[in-house]
């Protein structure tokens, strides 16, 4: 009995550490890229109300009411100063070519910088709203750039893609759009 009590603190510590490790492992998932990602809790909820001014004169402004027009759309949260946003540009252009409507939310950005970014990397956007203080980004539960949300025809957020869209992510996004139909 006394022997056992001597070992008790060690056993408690081992169980505690093991449990904590297991929790971290399950929270991070098996994919190392998913680590440190904070997923939005807004999936399945309606797009929060917002009305953003146009980021560029060449594009129309973006508000939440533009995102419940009967067909699913993509909302791409991006910025001209964001390096991975350049990497995902070809994939957004490919999605646009397939007929996917895409709207943009430009985070903390200047009109002329967004124009230069689109001229260099391509312009997949219908509408682009300027979000100079990240307000809409916070309302969406988005924690960085780039992020892409699938919104269904009723304005319900159906899917969140965190980070740049790589060629291998396109089928997942297409499937999410199909499911939102």
């Amino acid at each position, binding site marked *: 009995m006394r022997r056992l009590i001597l070992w008790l603190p060690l056993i408690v510590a081992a169980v505690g550490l093991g449990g904590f490790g297991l929790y971290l492992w399950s929270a991070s998932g098996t994919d190392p890229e998913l680590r440190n990602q*904070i997923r939005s809790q807004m999936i399945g909820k309606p797009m929060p109300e917002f009305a953003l001014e146009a980021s560029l004169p060449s594009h129309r402004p973006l508000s939440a009411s533009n995102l419940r027009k009967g067909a699913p759309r993509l909302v791409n949260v991006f910025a001209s100063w964001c390096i991975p946003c350049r990497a995902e540009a070809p994939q957004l252009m490919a999605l646009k070519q397939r007929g996917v409507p895409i709207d943009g939310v430009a985070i903390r950005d200047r009109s002329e910088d967004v124009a230069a970014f689109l001229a260099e990397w391509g312009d997949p956007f219908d509408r682009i709203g300027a979000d100079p*203080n*990240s307000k809409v*980004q916070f309302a969406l539960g988005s*924690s960085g750039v780039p992020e892409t949300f699938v919104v269904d025809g009723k304005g319900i957020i159906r899917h969140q893609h965190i980070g740049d869209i790589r060629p291998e992510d396109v089928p997942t996004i297409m499937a999410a759009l199909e499911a939102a139909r």
Partner: protein
Amino acid sequence: MRRVLILLALAAAAPALAQSSLPPARYANTQLEDPRQEAKAKALMETLRCLVCQGQSIADSDADMAGDMRALVRERIAAGESPEAIRAWLVDRYGSWVSYKPPVEPLTWPLWAAPFLLIAAGAWVARGRFRRRRR
């Protein structure tokens, strides 16, 4: 010669742009005029996690996004919203991750129970010791 060239190249190098060129929001680094409101905002900011740095509170972080979040907190406090309502608004969007104040829920029961369990265990051990000494 090569060294000089390398030094020149280093002097001319510009850092890669990964930060916004917009100036910070008005209340990102400016205190509220009312010191009582600022105290409330500060206390809340110290218990909100910066989303892009994750190991820091938004009060401690220099990230642009943390600055925007400080501005959001200050503006909402100035508009009369309670700190706990602002915390709840953020938790609704980001989960309890964003808050350094753990909620009482099944996942955190062990955390809240731990001090009481440890004190109970300590009392039990101490009781055993004192008994033995008396003998």
